């Protein structure tokens, strides 16, 4: 039971990183990266091939690089590689990264990468994926029990999630975060005040993809294996569901959304009675997430935790529940003399 709890919290921590990164793109600037899961995969694969070295670890598998750099460099490489691909895509798509164009470009990129990786064994061992990825502190903790190692990894994952959470919050409170929100709200006005909306979008895209890559790196280290079945392009929408249910633009919302949608729904199906046929469980989860998303978009589009009004030194005020922000009656015009 304890081990199971450790496992759940570890998975939540990793998924929080995914949700935070997507929230920076979608929630802060309104960049629609529907190929987000591909950046998770890039992080995972790069982490693997920079830590696997030449040892076959008992598996017969093909992959590139064969590096064996000390931890945590592989995870950072994963994050940087994901960010680099994100920025490369952005420069190719140009067009000011308008939401609709970028959505098409990112979805295509995810599909193209997926097809290449799944069909080309020499990159990351094809559809079977990579296994035997070394875990952090493996050598030092070779004698540790499953629970103890689980706890160590849990601490690592939570530290990563906490650092990225604090970094995200700092970004949100900074003038750069404000610039991002301004671009989301009205890019023509932002332009009229000397800003280039592309800059805010590039920054959000780079930072968000970096988060995706870091999360992917931790995920592959935790599972020690990762294959193309883990990042079918449509998986991105489950992360979107987490961000929307938690509260678009709210960092704590991303944490809550990751816990509920990404981990909670998947894990809850473990406790279904055995009489339910197992082949219904997987699709059932998808249906459940879809229904949840529709209900939230219809009845609580701001999510469980709405975006807060950020103030640098002061308190936070919750935005009103009504997202349409009605104009108050004209009497409010009366100024104090």
């Amino acid at each position, binding site marked *: 039971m304890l081990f199971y709890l450790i496992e759940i919290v570890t998975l939540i921590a990793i998924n929080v990183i995914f949700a935070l990164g997507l929230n920076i793109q979608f929630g802060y600037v309104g960049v629609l990266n529907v190929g987000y899961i591909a950046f998770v995969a890039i992080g995972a694969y790069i982490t693997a091939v920079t830590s696997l070295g030449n040892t076959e670890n008992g598996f017969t598998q093909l992959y590139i690089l064969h590096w064996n750099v000390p931890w945590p460099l592989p995870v950072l490489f994963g994050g940087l590689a994901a960010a680099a691909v994100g920025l490369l895509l952005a420069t190719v798509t140009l067009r000011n990264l308008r939401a609709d164009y970028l959505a098409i470009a990112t979805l295509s990129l995810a599909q193209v990468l997926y097809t290449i990786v799944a069909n080309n064994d020499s990159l990351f061992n094809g559809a079977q994926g990579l296994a035997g990825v070394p875990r952090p502190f493996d050598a030092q903790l070779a004698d540790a029990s499953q629970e103890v190692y689980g706890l160590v990894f849990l601490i690592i994952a939570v530290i990563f999630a906490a650092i990225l959470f604090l*970094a995200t919050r*700092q*970004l949100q*409170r*900074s*003038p*750069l*975060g*404000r*610039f991002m*929100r*301004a671009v989301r*709200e*009205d890019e*023509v*006005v*932002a*332009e*009229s*005040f*000397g*800003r*280039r909306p592309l800059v805010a979008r590039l*920054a959000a895209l*780079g930072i968000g993809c970096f988060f995706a890559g870091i999360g992917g790196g931790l995920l592959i280290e935790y599972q020690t294996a990762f294959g193309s079945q883990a990042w079918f392009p449509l998986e991105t929408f489950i992360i979107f569901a987490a961000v929307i249910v938690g509260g678009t633009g709210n960092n704590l919302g991303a944490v809550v959304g990751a816990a509920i949608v990404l981990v909670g729904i998947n894990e809850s199906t473990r406790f279904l009675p055995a009489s339910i046929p197992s082949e219904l469980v997987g699709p059932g989860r998808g249906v459940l997430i879809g229904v949840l998303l529709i209900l939230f978009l219809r009845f609580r589009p701001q999510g469980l935790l709405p*975006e807060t*009004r*950020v*103030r*640098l030194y002061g308190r936070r*005020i919750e*935005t*009103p529940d009504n997202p349409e*922000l*009605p*104009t*108050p*009656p*004209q009497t*409010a*015009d*009366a*100024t*104090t003399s």
Partner: protein
Amino acid sequence: MTSVDDALLAVDSVSQNFGGVQAVRDCSFVVRSGHVTGLIGPNGAGKSTLMEIIAGGLRPTRGRVVLRGEDITGKLRSTVGRMGLVRTFQTARVFPRLPLMENLLIGRQVQRGESLARAWLPPLWRAQEDELRARAEELLEEVGLSHRRDALGGELSGGQMKLLEIARALMANPTLLLLDEPIAGVNPRLVDTVVAVIERLRGRGIEVLLVEHNLSFVGRVCSDVIVMAEGTVLAQGDLDTVRADRRVIDAYLGSA
């Protein structure tokens, strides 16, 4: 007449076609320093198109726009903005889901904390941030919105949004402020606030070009008036002079 190159702003033989429609026809005028200039004219005269062209939103079919000797024709909005030409919009455009304070803070164009490297290190930008916040508080006070400082942009009335836009533009310390119908939808009591704000700008070296339909307002604040009709300039001078101009009377009352 001041020449194109030493004027604060010069519009030189600008034409703009939209398909077969000629919205602006060979339009030329000069905005002179030391004046609040009003651009007036009946609906469809081409005023809004011209504002877009000046602010960098639109490249004219022909002609050029010169800001203090520098050709800004067809430059990006962001470039024109950084050159000190800042505008408001005909239909107020505030950031609806951002608090008034953030709406104003965006107005300042060069901010240390907007760089990707510095954003994470508050000590590098906190001093500027404090200064901007103090300035924003002053401006909220000046346009009479400080009692609503905790509201979101989208929660204001239409008239209050116009005032917020003016305050945001002033955050930029512009050299030339374009006001697009600054009192449209503004409650009569607040019009006095707008007049007072514009009058105070004279002493600060901020020049104003405004488009407005309300002639009594134009008479109160503008010392130079440009009249447009059917895409071209009919007359320029003080309000009484242009009012007496035969062509202006025809354009306004209809020559039919």
